[in-house]
């Protein structure tokens, strides 16, 4: 069984919102209709988005870290939003695990948004239906796009490659390997929703350098006391000539 998902590397995300605009651009132009905005250029803009980049500050000054946190539908393996839907408009695809909303069946009761602990669903105020990330289902299976473009719009747009896309049920896929090898985690594991999307943690990139890596303690020439010439402490040819 396939479960398509995103893996988002919080260590790499720079919070540029390219995934947000790219997502909106693709998904507002599709056959499913626009993701409507209200007052987009006014004082109080609002609109429908599948994907948002949020920013958090961790720690207390001066020891703080800014974490940019892209959030979209996590395509849970046990999606709590699906069984509560009274019409069956919300469903999880068997073939690839994508959670979708059938806009033609949705009655706009918003009950699924109550049932999603992640706030991944947004009600479109103009179309009056519930909307959410589709994992660009109309891109990834498109036969008119070049093979390399058959990936979610946000993944294509990310300038730092913070977003990976693949099948988390295939243990050898890039996403499964990354999750496994880089301590990938799921959001709010306490609710048992088993999100398919995973995040990679912030990690400090440090380099451990021992002194003997800079200067070999067991250099046989050094043991002889003859070479290198001149001794390490004295200026070398490199300091005085450009060869």
């Amino acid at each position, binding site marked *: 069984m396939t479960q398509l998902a995103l893996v988002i590397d*919080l260590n790499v995300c720079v919070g540029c919102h390219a995934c*947000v605009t790219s997502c909106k651009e693709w998904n507002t132009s599709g056959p499913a209709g626009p993701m409507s905005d209200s*007052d987009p250029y006014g004082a*109080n*803009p*609002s*609109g*429908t*988005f599948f994907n*948002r*980049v*949020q*920013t*958090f*500050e*961790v*720690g207390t000054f001066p020891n703080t870290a*800014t*974490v940019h*946190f892209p*959030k979209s539908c996590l395509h849970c393996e046990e999606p*709590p939003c*699906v*069984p*509560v*839907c*009274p*019409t*069956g*408009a919300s469903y999880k695809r068997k073939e690839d695990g994508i959670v979708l909303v059938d806009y033609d*069946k*949705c*009655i*706009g*009761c*918003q*009950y699924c*948004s*109550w*049932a*999603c*602990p*992640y*706030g991944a669903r*947004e*009600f479109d*105020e103009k*179309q*009056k*239906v519930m909307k959410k990330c589709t994992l660009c289902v109309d891109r990834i299976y498109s036969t008119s796009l070049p093979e390399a473009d058959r990936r979610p719009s946000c993944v294509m747009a990310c300038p730092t490659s913070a977003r990976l896309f693949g099948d988390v049920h295939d243990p050898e896929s890039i996403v499964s390997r990354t999750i496994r090898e880089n301590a990938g*985690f*799921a*959001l*709010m*594991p*306490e*609710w048992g929703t088993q999100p398919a999307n995973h*995040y990679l*943690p*912030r990690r400090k990139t440090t380099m451990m350098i021992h002194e003997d890596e800079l200067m070999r303690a067991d250099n046989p020439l050094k043991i002889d006391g003859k070479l290198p010439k001149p001794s390490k402490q004295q200026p070398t040819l490199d300091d005085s000539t450009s060869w």
Partner: protein
Amino acid sequence: MKPPFSVIFLTTFIGIGQGLFLALYTGQLYSLFDLLPIQDSRTFYALGSALAMAFLVAGLIASFFHLGHPERAWRSAAMWRTSWLSREVIVLPAFMGIVFLYGVAHWFNWHTPIVELAGGRQVDITLILGAIGTILSFTLFICTGMIYGCLRFMQEWHTPLTPINFTLFGGASGFLLASVFSTIVAPHLVGFFAGWAIIITMLALIGRSASLWRNARIKPKSSLSTAIGIKHPHIVQISQGSMGGSFNTRAFSHGKSVNLIRAIKPAFIIMTFVLPIILLAVGLSSPQLLITAFIIQYTGLLAERWFFFAEANHPQNLYYQKVA
């Protein structure tokens, strides 16, 4: 949560309708066992059913205002296997149908005995319809309550007290309305219904106090730390992702001041429970007092239901704390 007024009216109105029907049928059962005098089929049971029906219809109409696409509402009966909302959508019209038939059967005096119980008691079609209606009424209370109770991460709602309280609130307001109704058509039954109204209102007070007590002590399972997966005690949101609001910032917070919330809690306790109980106790002979009690309790129920939504803290709010 932002309290949706359509749902507040839906749940309070159908609660009254269900409770009134239960009250009428309780009266009929008592008279079957000669504990109460037999009432006139038309003026008491048929008119009472019509009154219950009016509240159920009002609730049903209110519910449509909650929908983005009311014209597709018929679709919502599809997923009854998994969705309590879908179950409610099926049970509500079924219950309304039975209330209608119950009223019709009483109106046309269909009292031909169908079964005879031990002791020579005659069971007619109205008693059978009433029994079915009673089952459906309780099922509807459970469905309505479980719509909220089944959401496991809405910790304030995820308790058996939610459907229990919905049942008790509906019962209390329904029996209170029955006592108001009987001042007009069956004055000697006022004491019976008012007595039950007092008892159920007291039970509702116990149930709601229990849930208030419980909810005041809830430890949220989710935190910013589990929400974004960063193990640190000090995390604050800088930006929710857009400078204007979004659906998520509007639909999941009541947006009212702490003072209002603090004021509403004692207000609904007094209006839903304390005042109606006092007025019922002293107002047995006074229709005006009973009507006042009913209006005060209904206003209190609106406030209670508003508070029910407002007190529920949705974990998604962890992600939407700062509109920036």
